[in-house]
């Protein structure tokens, strides 16, 4: 009956030989995520007229909603120089995504839209094919009023294009900021 003993020994051996150490899996460094977009606006005529707009969603696709802040009103009839920064704050320290987007400028484009308020946008930077990128831009404000500015970062749009609706690609970031233009 010796053979049975060996067999009994062998079967658990078979099943636990493939059982690696009970290590807990390592946490994933979520590289693809953008948690934060910050827009810095400076009045070209008045360096003290600075407005920051930010959207921040620290749990990414988790249930918490993004927090949107705009820290002041815009002045009417002015030209603002704008710059956008993106970051992944899930990583510690936070990763600057803006550099990546500048590196892959030909695969990205920022689109600007205003509804309810009179604002004109102009691209301030271009990719290697001389197509607009939009990390740097300028905007001219018209009359006083309330409305929204929507900023959309698209990955792999058709470039050149004539606007967000026909650009294709996929939307990485899209946020509407409530804005007020004051006299």
């Amino acid at each position, binding site marked *: 009956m010796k*053979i049975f003993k060996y067999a009994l020994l062998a079967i658990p051996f078979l099943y636990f030989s493939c059982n690696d150490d009970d290590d807990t*899996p*390592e946490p994933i460094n*979520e590289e693809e995520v953008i*948690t934060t977009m910050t827009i810095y606006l400076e009045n070209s005529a008045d360096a003290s007229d600075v407005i920051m707009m930010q959207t921040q969603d620290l*749990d990414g696709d988790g249930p918490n909603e993004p927090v949107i802040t705009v820290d002041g009103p815009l002045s009417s009839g002015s030209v603002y120089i704008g710059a956008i920064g993106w970051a992944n704050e899930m990583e510690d320290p936070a990763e600057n995504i803006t550099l990546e987007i500048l590196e892959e400028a030909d695969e990205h484009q920022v689109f600007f839209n205003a509804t309810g308020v009179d604002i004109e946008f102009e691209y301030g930077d271009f990719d290697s094919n001389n197509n607009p990128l939009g990390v740097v831009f300028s905007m001219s404000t018209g009359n006083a009023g309330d409305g929204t500015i929507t900023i959309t970062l698209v990955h792999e749009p058709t470039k050149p294009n004539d606007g967000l609706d026909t650009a294709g690609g*996929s939307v990485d970031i*899209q*946020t*509407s900021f409530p804005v007020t233009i004051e006299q």
Partner: protein
Amino acid sequence: MLILVEELALFYIYILNFLVVYIIVRSISFFLVLIPLHINNSYAQDCEYKLSIQVLDLHDGLPLVNATVEINELDKLGTTDFDGNVVFKNLCTNSYTLNITHEEYESLSLLVNVKKDTYKQIRLEHHLNELEEIMVISNNRNNSRTLFENKISKEVLEDYNSRSLGEVLKTVTGISSLNSGNYLSKPVINGLHSSRVILINNGVRLEDQEWGIEHAPSIDINSIDKISIIKGASALKYAGDAVGGVIIAESSREKLLDTLYGNATTNLQSNGRGGGISTNFTKTNSNGWYYRLQGTLKRMGDFETPNYVMTNTGFSEHNLSLKAGLNRIDHGFDIYYSLFSNYLGILRSSHAHTAIDIINAIENEVPHIIEDFSYDINIPRQKISHNLLKLRGFKNFDFGKLSMRYDFQSNDRKEYDIRRGDRTKPALDLNLQTHSLAFDLESKFQNNSNLKAGILARYQKNFPDPATGVKRIIPDYKKYDFSLYSVYDINLSENWFLEAALRYDFSHIDAYKYYRTSLWEARNYDELFPEFVVEDLGLNTLTNPKFDFHNISSNLGARYSISESENIFINYSMSSRKPNPSELFSEGLHHSSARIEIGDLSFNSEVGHNFSITYDSSNEKSSLTVNAFANIVDDFIYMIPIDLMPTIAGAFPYWEYKQEDAKLFGFDLKYDSQYFTNFFVGHQFSIIKGYERANDKPLINMPPVNLKNQISYNFPELNNLNISLESEYVFKQNEYPNNNFEVFIPTEQTYQLLDTSTPPNAYHLLNFASSIGFKAENGGNYKINLRVENLFNKLYKNYLNRLRYFTHEMGRNILLSVSYNY
């Protein structure tokens, strides 16, 4: 390299283990012979003992009349009676050599010790030339005799050898496929798919992340000679959780002759501008040893609709299988290895990120990226490799046929997506390893009844590689399964045949998963499952969910034979399916469907009650099969849209898995008839309806009603030239859940409808098929097939294609294949 060494080491261990178990099996048989001898210690030296011999057929155990039994030492002769018995009296304590001969069987000599009255059963083997026939008969037996099985023959498989398994299965009435593009297709049986359809490849349950709707089964149809489809859950020998059905793919049995045979096939097709080659080669010997090699290569470029190229839809595939073994009828073993690997482009424009991307795609109707035809397989793409190793041994004993099987599967799935930064890195990298050990017993209970029973242990480990830099969609887990089943069948009378089966499945899942802390709390898991928490890391919480599932499944079936050619099959089966990893653990954005999908840790098993009745009649001129079923599923797990969830990338539809009672009904009809001498007409019709039970809301992705008609004409005098025309009409699915959403468009500050529910219109396709055969001088034969699909180059969309929002279906396709059999 290290992994390879590890695998080799494991492999070595399995071989060892196999040998050990084989030795056990052998030694059991040895003991069974020895034990009576030990007990039969004698005390007397008188010559008054009786030796009773019973001679039986080795295969069916039936008694053999007129076998001659000779005792060499005594020159005594005897002939067996009607019960296979012969008795020798007045023997002394001694060893005697017996010679047993029978004109239809191989002769046998053996030594018998007589120390008291002795009874000995002897089983004779047929002459080798007859064995072949016997084996053919026994192999044609169905998996079950109370179930109607749909079969796909070798001929059909040969005609479709450039396709995927899902496409071939569609030739069967009532089976459709759920596609993601052109080549990636999953079988749908009676309206159900994925985890609800179990695939058995050469006796091994396929473990290849089958829960995923965009994961096609990892089987090369060229490695298969026969497919049986069992609708409903009745194949309890294989699985207890097949709520939809079971697909059994097998390679054919090796002949018991000294021969060498094989096949080489080349095929080319116009759409995709590619083709494939496949070859197999089998060497068999009359002493039972055999081996078989098989390989397939396929390569296709971009497929085309009538109007445009579907950019990045090409693929390449290479498959290999080896089998070797010994078949001695009453014992034998085999070793089988197969590798399935493919590299599959996914339509470039199907990469949607937000609801707005999908709205735009639906509005545009055609993909936004259309490039010139190319063979390149760019991102997005999938790279799959599936290894299967099986060792099997069997031996016939007095109590039946006992077989042992060990199998190992390693499924490696890498999905590459459009991403910033390093594109050579997959966005999903899963490795699933499965080991199974099973013992099965088939035994003849009485002359009219059989008992099959078995026991199985399985260990599975899923490893999602964290190097992807993307949140794991399926966590690390280990799963331990243990199953017992038994199937009893009885031939009650000439007309009635009954079968009953019972199966028990136990599963233990031990998973490690990082949850977003915000989700863990929003789902109330912190109160429901505090014991799962390992560590709160702030943003994420490391958890260790553990589950046990105890599932019972059963089956009761009857066949009533009205006459030899007319049968009615009635079947009831109950199946229990534990929730799959996706249903339990999903918690986040699923990029390919641009929605957030949330599973539920508190799910219990889904239980299906399937009733089916089939009428089958066939004669020389016609054949008719009618099948109706009702599947009442308790705690059916499916997804419904709940809300929109704002994220930084915009608002996403938020879908949750739910457990609700459901019901499905269906009806299939197949009728073939012959008119005049060489004219054939065939019809197939199938309809399936599925609803939630509480509110009669239709279930999603139910196959639309379809009708297929075929006429064909055969010219036997012209090298068996066969010409046929097939028509396929697919109705519009008019019953579907309305999961449409109003999506906020921030740039316009308005709402727009995201209509992902409305099915596309009905369509009608015509196909042409022809085949011709030639005999080669050396005895082999050639077969040439020419097929034209979508003859009129129709532009249409298919409800069961997940990419239908982005693209139309394939346009005209001309396929040519030449195969040579030897």
